[in-house]
């Protein structure tokens, strides 16, 4: 967790039941209840401590940008879906079965030959995690968060993305209420690829907008 990942209202949990306001005594009692279950299950050979630790680790570091790639690939092959995605992204993404957002709205911005979009959260690290998984470390860095607003082209160059001078760069600032996702351009020479094959081309960085989708 970085030093910028502090608590403030902008990023506060939306639901009251997420809050912890228990007394130390109550936590002690709950700790005992869980220990009892764990000991019982260990005795039955159903769980072991190391496996449990590993499991929490997996879920805490869950990377799920595949969902976003599926959204983008569908938009590339299905013009009706793309229209719905650009007008009401939250609903269109839910059509594919991806949800779990807690009150945030998704907005999808489309890259074209004239416009290149890039996403940031200048205040902290708001991020469309149901479609992109956890944010990369650099997304939370103060350097990225401030510089991409002031000089997006130089940041993009550092990611290996060079844009023509006549391309307009738009920077979108995510918040607790609105999470942006970039719909990258479909690369030339991919007309023969199936939707599943297209999904494999689309990586996280292209949906944040710091890179273009490349044919690998």
């Amino acid at each position, binding site marked *: 967790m970085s030093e910028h990942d502090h608590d403030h209202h902008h990023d506060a949990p939306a639901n009251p039941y997420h809050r912890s306001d228990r007394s130390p005594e109550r*936590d002690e009692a709950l700790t005992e209840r*869980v*220990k009892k*279950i764990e000991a019982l299950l260990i005795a039955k050979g159903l769980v072991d401590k190391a496996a449990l630790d590993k499991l929490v680790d*997996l*879920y805490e570091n869950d990377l799920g*940008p595949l969902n976003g790639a599926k959204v983008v690939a569908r938009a590339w092959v299905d013009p009706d879906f793309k229209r719905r995605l650009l007008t009401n992204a939250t609903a269109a993404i839910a059509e594919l079965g991806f949800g*779990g957002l807690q009150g945030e709205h998704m907005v999808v911005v489309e890259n074209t030959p004239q416009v290149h979009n890039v996403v940031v959260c200048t205040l902290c690290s*708001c991020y469309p995690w149901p479609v992109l998984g956890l944010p990369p470390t650099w997304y939370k860095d103060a350097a990225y968060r401030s510089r991409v607003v002031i000089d997006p082209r130089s940041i993009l160059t550092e990611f290996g993305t060079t844009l023509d001078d006549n391309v307009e760069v738009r920077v979108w600032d995510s918040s607790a209420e609105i999470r942006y996702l970039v719909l990258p351009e479909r690369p030339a020479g991919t007309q023969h690829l199936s939707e599943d094959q297209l999904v494999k081309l689309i990586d996280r960085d292209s949906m944040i907008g710091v890179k273009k989708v490349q044919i690998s």
Partner: protein
Amino acid sequence: MSEERLTRPDIAEMAGTSALPRKSGELVFHNEWERRAFAIAVSLAEQGQFEWSEFQQQLIESIAAAERDDPQNPGRGYYESWLESLEAVLRRKHLLSDRAD
């Protein structure tokens, strides 16, 4: 893209009241027991000791019960309802007794 997903979407991406508490995508645990209770339930479901949908349904009911009196000030937190649900499901599966059944 080569990242293989090792977690189950039906667990990681539960929607509505049963959605895992997160902050910018990262799971939020206030105490170590919450982390243990999370891992035990997920581990048993991944082994097929119970269906995740059964646990989730129990969790939804448990959260609703906690919010019944005052939705803004529920009687217990998310992982307390989680623990209630875990105990209830384990009891149904006869996994909460000392006997090795």
